[in-house]
């Protein structure tokens, strides 16, 4: 063998030894009994067994482990040089096997599982600190640091945001921080929020202390809980992608995610199942700003275009309106009185409400007289399904603080879009205005604005929901054309007493009657709004002055507001468990939500009974006259239809 060949062989040997070397756990104590050593060794072997191959290969070092005297509440800790230290108080129970059956209050169950989780937790800290980036990541980080040095923070490319000062393998990864609940603070070039709002249904609130602990705690569950991928699917996906590995023996997840429908129909069971596979599209739903000074920036929501059962995914699903849901971040105000000061200082919780589309259409277009635009987001199937799943996760875990400016509906919606879809173009997008966010989405090709090009088609296919202000104008024009009325403005027509409009009904043909029907509804809604305003004013002033007559109705209203909190914070219905509820929790969830909803229904029945007696007599008379008009118009329409021999629906 020639000399160079020998060298080559040596080199090959060295390399192969290097690649086979991996993480070793060594018990570094001599004064343990044989049984103690054996029990510890079995634990360590199990820990190594549970780790992903990439983890063990990359963390190529010898980690010492010893039993130390530690405070009773601590299972263990890890130091850079000291290795892992476990609490010696727990050694006897591990050795004689009691630890395997000793139950704990924590989700891991037994003391032995806790010890195993502790070893994995501490090893994760070591892995995280070791900066074990992949070659591709390393070159990205280097590229980003160079860009920062030469161009400064303003000239930084989008994909460098959050990558210029990385120190950890996992816990300062921008995507991980998005999923973990430390999102980008709006308008601060990627700087992260200090507080974590994903408070509810946490397996271990220690994870909320900082991103390093978050990663370590989540690795425990990722590696030890077969249901982790069902309970925290987005994080499980992130970790599985990082390690290019899925833990063995995964649990079978349910088809859909449980959610609570915050619709106003208290007679209906609010618990539902949201199946990402049945969502055809996700639209950005914007309640457009109107002339009123109070709503000039609009409101951001997301619309889930869900297909009716049995219908294949496709454009036809756009007409399954009764299936569609709206995701809307709102401040939860459990009181009639809203304080602007509390809103500015974040005293109200910000929560993700899931609402039926039809209710949202009615509230905006018919009550607030604002139009809605529903613009399809351009997402891949994978991005879309991940976004829907992420929304369910937020529904169960998020309980943030609403700030009128820095954490409003647009900011929250953007955070959900970013963390859910992980679309690269969303990473560096910033907007605090609902209409500004839509413009940014359109500009980056993330939303398809062409659906609005033809206004008639947009209305017919549900990309635009027109404000009823426009409809009332159109109806009034029909009325002017077909009946010799004096009024020249729709407002003047509606301001007349109901009894002045009523005599026209008999003279109205089918078209005029149809127009009158909508106008009578407008008149009734106007009366309702006036009644509501009067009641609210009376209630708020009466509360200060102890007005006894408002007692029962006011009590019912306050209780309805206070008790409806569970609809936006469903976590309070369950005890134990973490993340998305699983089938074992479904029964309790069903029973609890039904109970709460029945309570709400009784309260709302009480309010229904009381509330009319509180109205001023003139208001009540006008309201009843309006209702009477609507009933008469209905009868008139049916009469015309029958006389003309129209089709009767079965």
């Amino acid at each position, binding site marked *: 063998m020639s000399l160079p060949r020998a060298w080559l062989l040596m080199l090959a040997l060295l390399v192969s030894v290097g690649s086979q070397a991996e993480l070793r756990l060594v018990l570094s104590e001599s004064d343990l009994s044989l049984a103690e050593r054996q029990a510890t060794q079995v634990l360590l072997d199990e820990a190594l067994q549970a780790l992903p191959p990439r983890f063990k290969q990359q963390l190529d070092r010898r980690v010492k482990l010893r039993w130390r005297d530690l405070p009773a509440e601590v299972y263990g800790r890890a130091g850079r040089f000291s290795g892992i230290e476990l609490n010696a108080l727990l050694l006897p129970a591990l050795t004689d096997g009691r630890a395997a059956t000793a139950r704990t209050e924590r989700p891991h169950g037994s003391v032995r599982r806790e010890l195993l989780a502790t070893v994995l937790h501490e090893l994760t800290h070591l892995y995280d600190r070791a900066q074990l980036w992949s070659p591709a990541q390393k070159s990205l980080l280097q590229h980003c640091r160079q860009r920062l040095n030469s161009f400064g923070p303003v000239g930084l490319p989008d994909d460098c945001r959050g990558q210029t000062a990385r120190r950890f393998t996992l816990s300062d990864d921008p995507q991980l921080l998005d999923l973990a609940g430390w999102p980008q603070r709006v308008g601060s070039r990627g700087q992260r929020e200090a507080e974590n709002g994903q408070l509810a249904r946490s397996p271990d609130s220690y994870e909320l202390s900082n991103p390093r602990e978050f990663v370590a705690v989540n690795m425990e569950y990722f590696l030890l809980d077969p249901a982790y991928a069902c309970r925290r699917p987005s994080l499980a996906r992130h970790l599985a992608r990082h390690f290019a590995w899925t833990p063995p023996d995964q649990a079978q997840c349910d088809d859909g995610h449980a959610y609570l429908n915050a619709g*106003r129909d208290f007679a209906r069971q609010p618990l539902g199942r949201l199946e990402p596979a049945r969502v055809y599209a996700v639209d950005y739903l914007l309640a457009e700003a109107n002339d009123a000074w109070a709503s*000039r920036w609009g409101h951001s929501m997301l619309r889930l275009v869900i297909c009716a059962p049995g219908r294949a995914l496709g454009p036809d699903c756009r007409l399954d309106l009764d299936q569609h849901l709206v995701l809307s971040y709102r401040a939860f105000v459990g009181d009639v009185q809203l304080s602007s000061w509390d809103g500015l200082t974040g005293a109200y919780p910000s929560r993700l409400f899931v609402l039926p589309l039809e209710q949202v259409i009615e509230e905006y277009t018919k009550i607030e007289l604002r139009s809605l635009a529903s613009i399809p987001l351009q997402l891949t199937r994978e991005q879309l399904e991940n976004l829907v799943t992420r929304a369910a996760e937020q529904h169960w875990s998020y309980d943030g603080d609403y700030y009128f400016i820095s954490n409003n509906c647009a900011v929250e919606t953007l955070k959900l879009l970013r963390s859910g879809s992980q679309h690269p173009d969303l990473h560096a997008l910033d907007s605090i205005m609902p209409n500004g966010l839509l413009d940014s989405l359109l500009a980056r090709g993330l939303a398809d604005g062409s659906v609005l090009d033809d206004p008639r088609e947009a209305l017919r296919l549900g990309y635009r929901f027109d404000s009823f202000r426009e409809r009332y104008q159109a109806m009034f024009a029909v009325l002017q054309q077909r009946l010799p009325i004096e009024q020249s403005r729709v407002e003047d027509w509606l301001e007349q007493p109901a009894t002045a409009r009523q005599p026209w009904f008999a003279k109205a043909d089918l078209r005029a009657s*149809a127009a009158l029907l909508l106008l009578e509804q407008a008149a009734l809604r106007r009366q309702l709004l006036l009644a509501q305003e009067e009641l609210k004013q009376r209630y708020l002033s009466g509360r200060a002055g102890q007005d006894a007559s408002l007692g029962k109705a006011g009590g019912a209203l306050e209780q309805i507001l206070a008790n409806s909190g569970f609809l936006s914070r469903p976590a309070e219905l369950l005890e134990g468990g973490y993340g998305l509820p699983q089938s074992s929790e479904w029964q309790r969830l069903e029973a609890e939500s039904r109970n709460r909803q029945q309570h709400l229904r009784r309260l*709302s029945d009480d309010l229904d009974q009381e509330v009319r007696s509180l109205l001023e007599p003139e208001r009540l008379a006008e309201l009843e006259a309006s209702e009477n008009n609507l009933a008469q118009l209905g009868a008139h329409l049916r009469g015309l239809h029958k006389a003309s021999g129209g089709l009767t629906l079965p």
Partner: protein
Amino acid sequence: MYRSLLSAVVVVALFAGSVQAQTLVASSNVIIRAVDRTFDFTSDTTTSIRDSKIVLAARDDAASFVATQGAIRGVQLEAALGAIRSRVPEAQGASDLVLAEAILAL
């Protein structure tokens, strides 16, 4: 300094108004619902087309369509027309206007 502070106050006041309007929706709706007796809630399990949610939700769209002779054609009507045609054989050949009138006469 003074100027930026002033504009901050103005922005704050405007935003406060906007969110106030937004968040009061919940309590307002409770009151409106309590006062209003024309709301009717329908069950999901109904079998008759005239009681189906999607058809009842189309009543306002049907009225707009009939009044304007088809100029205003909303998606709720569109959805109801599809639902009726797929479930009622004699409706398949009927025009949109005939069906809209039928919805209006419910």
